């Protein structure tokens, strides 16, 4: 027998294992043979929660697709039929609707966790970048998915967002027509969006595998940000973290299903229960909550800011600048491993960064709040300041901070930090 074949108790498993070593693969990946830092806290639960949510989305989505009709004349009605006539259709749809929200909650926390503990730093840069690609794919999936019920917000959201591509120089208009498959958001658009909405989650699934592959190469970061140095620093993933993840999942499901059953439309937009009408724009177009910060950035660029400087107007307008800023706000995150110049990973040992981190979190909340309001008056002003701060934090503060910040002494190892926990706590 080959050396990588393990002896399992069950002869059937052994028979399979000899031919396809899948059981040892599982054991090495999420089982007793995968060593994890012994000090992971609950912020480390959100990766697995995101993963479970992805599976829930795929499962409910496939069953919804069995009853959904991607045609402008029938889409809205087919969704209403799912809600009223199809057995448990309402449940599938509400789980899928709220699942999108939960997915973004889990992933946002997951990303902020990475920022707080410096998880993106060497050697986890690619792991981080794959994460950002997953995030972009999630946004694309959620955007096309929201168009499918063909309500007023579906239609107008799609119109506004696809129009963003018209700012691309020279080819803008042909690219937008290409996206639409026509001269406006219409039946061909709905059809292809359905097709993409079906495809993308499987792409995300594959990306998650790459993400985990990269994760397993250097293992998880941990609250101290100190690398694993020896056996004393680790515990087997199973049963310790399988149990902890399972407990976290229970709590998460209470939250998730609480909304699903008791306030299923809490995160939704009533306007989307009105059938799409290409001739009437709703009084206000608001995207789903998880896009609000970006929507605020999109609308933040002042019109006369461009005029005031005199050089730019030939090159870009406020609209173009807004679109560029919005995409830049996400792309900038991919460069975090290089923007953050500090050698110390965890905010626990970076007294100034720790505070700036929370200011940044607050800033994204402000942006989200602004994104939900019309871009005028003091909302516009605050939105501009918050947008400026977002970039100031990422592009200026982080590169400089690493040079000047006086960090706290790092523990010798993970196990040292755990065994000295009582003295650590005092700091």
């Amino acid at each position, binding site marked *: 027998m080959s050396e990588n074949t393990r002896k399992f108790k069950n002869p059937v498993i052994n028979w399979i294992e000899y031919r396809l070593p899948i059981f040892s693969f599982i054991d090495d990946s999420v089982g007793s043979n995968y060593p994890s830092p012994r000090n992971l806290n609950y912020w480390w639960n959100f990766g697995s929660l995101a993963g479970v949510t992805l599976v829930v989305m795929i499962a409910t989505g496939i069953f919804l697709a069995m009853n959904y009709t991607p045609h402008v004349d029938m889409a809205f009605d087919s969704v209403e039929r799912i809600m009223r006539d199809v057995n448990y259709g309402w449940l599938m749809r509400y789980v899928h609707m709220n699942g999108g929200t939960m997915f973004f909650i889990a992933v946002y926390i997951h990303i902020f966790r990475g920022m707080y503990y410096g998880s993106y730093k060497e050697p986890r840069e690619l792991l981080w970048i794959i994460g950002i690609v997953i995030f972009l794919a999630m946004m694309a999936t959620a955007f096309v998915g929201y168009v499918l019920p063909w309500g007023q917000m579906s239609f*107008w959201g799609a*119109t*506004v967002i696809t*129009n*963003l591509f018209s700012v691309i120089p020279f080819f803008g208009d042909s690219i937008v*027509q*290409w*996206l*639409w*498959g*026509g*001269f*406006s*958001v*219409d039946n*061909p658009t709905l059809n*292809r969006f359905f097709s993409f909405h079906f495809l993308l989650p499987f792409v995300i699934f594959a990306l998650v595998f790459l993400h985990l592959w990269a994760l397993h190469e250097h293992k998880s970061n941990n609250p101290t940000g100190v690398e694993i140095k020896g056996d004393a620093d680790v515990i087997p993933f199973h049963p310790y973290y399988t149990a902890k993840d399972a407990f976290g999942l229970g709590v998460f499901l209470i939250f998730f299903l609480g909304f699903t059953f008791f306030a299923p439309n809490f995160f939704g937009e009533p306007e989307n229960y009105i059938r799409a009408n*290409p*001739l*009437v*724009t709703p*009084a*206000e*177009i608001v995207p789903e909550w998880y896009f609000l910060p970006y929507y605020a950035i999109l*609308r933040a660029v002042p*019109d006369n800011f461009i005029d005031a400087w005199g050089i730019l107007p030939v090159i870009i*307008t*406020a*609209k173009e600048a807004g679109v560029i800023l919005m995409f830049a706000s996400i792309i900038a995150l991919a460069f975090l491993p290089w923007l953050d110049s500090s050698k110390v990973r965890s905010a626990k040992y970076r007294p100034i960064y720790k505070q700036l981190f929370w200011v940044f979190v607050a800033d994204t909340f402000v942006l989200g709040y602004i994104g939900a309001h*019309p*871009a*005028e008056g003091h909302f516009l002003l605050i939105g501009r300041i918050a947008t400026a701060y977002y970039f100031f934090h990422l592009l200026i503060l982080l590169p400089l901070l690493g040079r000047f910040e006086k960090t706290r002494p790092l523990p010798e190892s993970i196990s040292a930090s755990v065994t000295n926990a009582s003295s650590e706590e005092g700091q």
Partner: protein
Amino acid sequence: MAETASDTHDGPEGEETRRDFLLISTIAVGAAGAAVAAWPFIHMMNPSRDVLALASTEVDLEPIEEGQSITIVWRGKPVFIRKRTAKEIEIAKADDAATMKDPEADGTRVKKPEWLVMIGICTHLGCIPLGQKGSDPKGEFGGWFCPCHGSHYDTSGRIRKGPAPKNLPIPPYTFLDDTNIRIG
């Protein structure tokens, strides 16, 4: 691997060999083939023939009174057709001299001064501006007002205030006779 093979069989070390030539030309032909194969996929997403076939619309202007507007659908987009009053035409002409974001003379935006035909989609982010109905807000310049982010258009559909960068676009159209036009 390719290098080793060519190094030992095809010529002196470090020089280009026939094998390199074969390798490069194979890659080039393969890349060209991939590009050719990609085109049907890309082009399939472009507007199809039936969509293009419906790309023009004829409109009878007879029933429209002075000072009245109608909205018709052309290529899935709303087109605003307004029979302008003498006063509106006068204001539009007088404003030709005003400073504008997207300067354009009123005369170049119409074929006949009383008939203003334009695509009713805000050039900011694509909302439908208000101003078609008598009771609608018409903005500070008496034309159209986009409620989404507050763009004001004048009686010639030119952008005068707000975030929209361009005037409301004029679709291609021809007068078939005095009261009929074909758009597209």
